[in-house]
């Protein structure tokens, strides 16, 4: 930040590089706030449906593979580390290290999406899809489905079948009736549901869980893709040798974005996979 007049990156309407950097940083944080609010709508939908219909979430989450989800969490955390390190490398002008770290981050993102693809494919094959497309082909949940997927993949519900613990929990919580505000359900229908609630029977409207699952992870996946594009862009610029102690703003901002993508997953993973 020596002589402002000599910095080729200083735009004409800023007086100092520091002012330009601060403005950019504030803008970036505001942008991240809008991203959180964008996801906020989905988190809100999640909270409402989970509060109104806990039985759907408790039942349906067993179809998510928490080992794949956990692996993806670790991958994203590691990619966040390499990203943060890359920002440091850019600040110190370590060009080779920067290139290596950005490549590693990109690799992590690819790994994440590859695992996501495997998970989606599994859901697709078993008809565990959103709303109108929901047509499950696995009845007894908690067991490996007939016509199992390729051997390399663990069955969709690798977790031990939990009906026992399930019953205890169900007895504590009265299941909310389906329908908007529960108003559409006749009394006897509610009673019928109470009867079956503890038996591991599929509750009504399981598709709601998968709608929310696909919407949240899908939107997050799109953000991962956008992040990969951004990382690729700064990787190309890093190879070109654009960054150094004088100028590392794009690396810094892409890093912030990548941490946000990571952070959202940190919330998605327990909310969708680790319900109990």
């Amino acid at each position, binding site marked *: 930040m020596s002589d402002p007049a000599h910095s080729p990156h200083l735009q004409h309407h800023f007086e100092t590089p520091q002012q330009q950097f601060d403005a950019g940083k504030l803008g970036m944080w505001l942008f991240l706030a809008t991203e959180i609010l964008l996801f906020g709508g989905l988190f809100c939908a999640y909270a409402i449906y989970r509060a109104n219909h806990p039985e759907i979430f408790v039942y349906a989450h067993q179809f998510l593979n928490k080992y794949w989800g956990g692996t993806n969490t670790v991958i994203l955390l590691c990619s966040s580390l390499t990203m943060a390190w890359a920002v440091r490398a850019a600040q110190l002008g370590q060009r080779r290290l920067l290139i290596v770290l950005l490549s590693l981050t990109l690799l992590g993102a690819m790994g994440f999406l590859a695992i996501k693809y495997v998970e989606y494919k599994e859901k697709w094959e078993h008809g565990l899809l959103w709303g109108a497309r929901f047509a499950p082909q696995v009845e007894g949940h908690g067991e490996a489905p007939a016509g199992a997927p390729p051997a390399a993949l663990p069955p969709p519900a690798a977790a031990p079948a939990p009906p026992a613990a399930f019953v205890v929990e169900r007895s504590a919580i009265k299941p909310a009736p389906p329908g908007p*505000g529960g108003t559409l359900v006749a009394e006897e229908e509610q009673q019928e549901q109470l009867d079956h609630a503890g038996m591991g029977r599929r509750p009504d409207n399981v598709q709601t869980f998968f709608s929310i699952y696909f919407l949240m992870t899908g939107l997050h996946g799109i953000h991962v893709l956008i992040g990969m594009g951004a990382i690729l862009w700064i990787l190309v610029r890093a190879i070109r040798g654009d960054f150094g102690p004088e100028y590392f703003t794009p690396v810094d901002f892409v890093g912030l974005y990548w941490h946000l993508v990571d952070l959202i997953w940190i919330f998605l993973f327990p909310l969708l996979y680790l319900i109990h």
Partner: protein
Amino acid sequence: MATVEGAAAGRKVAPGDDYLTHTHGFLSWALTLDHKRIGIMYLVSILAAFLLGGVAALLVRTELIAPGPTIMGPDAYNKMFTLHGAAMVFLFIIPGIPAALGNFVLPLMLGAKDVAFPRLNLTSYWLWVIGALCAVGAVVAGGVDTGWTFYTPYSTTTNTNVIATTMGAFILGFSSIFTGLNFIVTIHKLRPVGMTWFKMPLMLWALYGTAAIQVLATPVLGITLLLLIAERALGVGIFDPALGGDPVLYQHFFWFYSHPAVYIMILPAMGVISEVIAVHSRKHIFGYRFIALSSIAIAAFGFLVWGHHMFTSGQSGMANAIFSALTFSVAIPSAIKVFNWLATLYKGNIQLNGAMLYGLMFLVTFTIGGLTGLHLGALAIDVHLHDTYFVVAHFHYVMFGGAVVAFMAGLHHWWPKMTGRMYDERLARIGAALVFVGFNATFFTQFVMGSHGMPRRYYDYTPGFAIYHQISTIASYVMAAGFFLTAYYLLHSLFRGRRAPMNPWGGNSLEWHTPSPPPHDNFAETPVAEDPYDYTRLKRDPATGGYLSTSYEGAR
């Protein structure tokens, strides 16, 4: 005269070199990073949208002039009022003051060379264009008949172009977010030496509050519209009771954005009025801090009242009561502003020119709009008035009587600065009178027929309502005549208007301290901020018809 004055103020401005003539050619405009040119492009575009929405409104009113089919069938009527609502709200009013006038004046008022992110600014304009083409294209290719609110389940079952239209609104939302983000950062980081927060012109406070709402509320609209698209395209069922979803959730999501969006429309209008009232009554604004902070209070309250759109949607009584009480509280900061404007007028030297007439019109129509909001905020009365023309009239008194009238005030106030030309004041007064009479006759009638039970959006009505509809329709033609007259004298001024002096009204915020139209870099030297409402050191200069600052003369 601009160059002469530039010289008089001790600045070096090359003769004839202003932002309009700095470079030439289509691309020099389409790819410009200059906030002034982007503001002008916005202005032209939103005025085109205003024309489109206005013509749709006139067709709707004409259809309603007599019971039964008049000029179009019921489906065409549904599409026409959707076009009117969507074009006016999403394409004209929301970007109207912030993106068009705000883009032009915000950096000038800050004494800055540009907004913080000029490229983002240009992106935001082209996103607006793409979004507008999406939305208007959907209408041309068959139309949408949901109304501008896209309520489910109708919007997920109708076989009109809902996806294209909501996609358009989604893209427009991004444009709005980027503009808001840009303004917040600009106000934080590019204020000049000596301009503390409480020395900013009130327009900037209003734009800041607006930008905060744009940044915080629009993403929620984004996800809502994405969910609606996913619902239609994929059948995710989040809003579909048959699949375990809840249509009322859509209304919550929609109004969580769209109620604050009402303040996106009205807050910048209040900013314009604060400038116009003070400058044209030649008096220091009264209660500066209260006006500034009430902008922020309105922005904050705006987030807490969305439920008042849903009193009859099956909310709990408790929620209704809370939302009703919060709705009343919005009246407090709004009333603070109105009283402060009135106190500014008191013993002022009021200039009844075009800009000021619209400013005074705002005080009348916005107050009626605001007070009828209290009728609708009261639970028991709302059950009776819900979905009647009373709501339509209230909405138009706030949106038209508030936002559009203030836009007109601002357009007249800054027109000399933007174009370097003076318009015909006599025609401006006639135009303002036509708009005032036409508007009130159109919509006050609707208060009456609404309270008599005429439901909104209906294609047909019983003969008892015919007289009200006829008055309303004929008055809307009077209003339209006022706007066409306005279009005429403004366009005329571009070619035949007198050259505008640097400071035609005697304002003291920084945009009046640079030639009209401003040079490419806004200011030859970074100006020093003074109290923007101190008019005592401005002296009328008979030679140019403008005002000169004696502090500059002292400096010379």
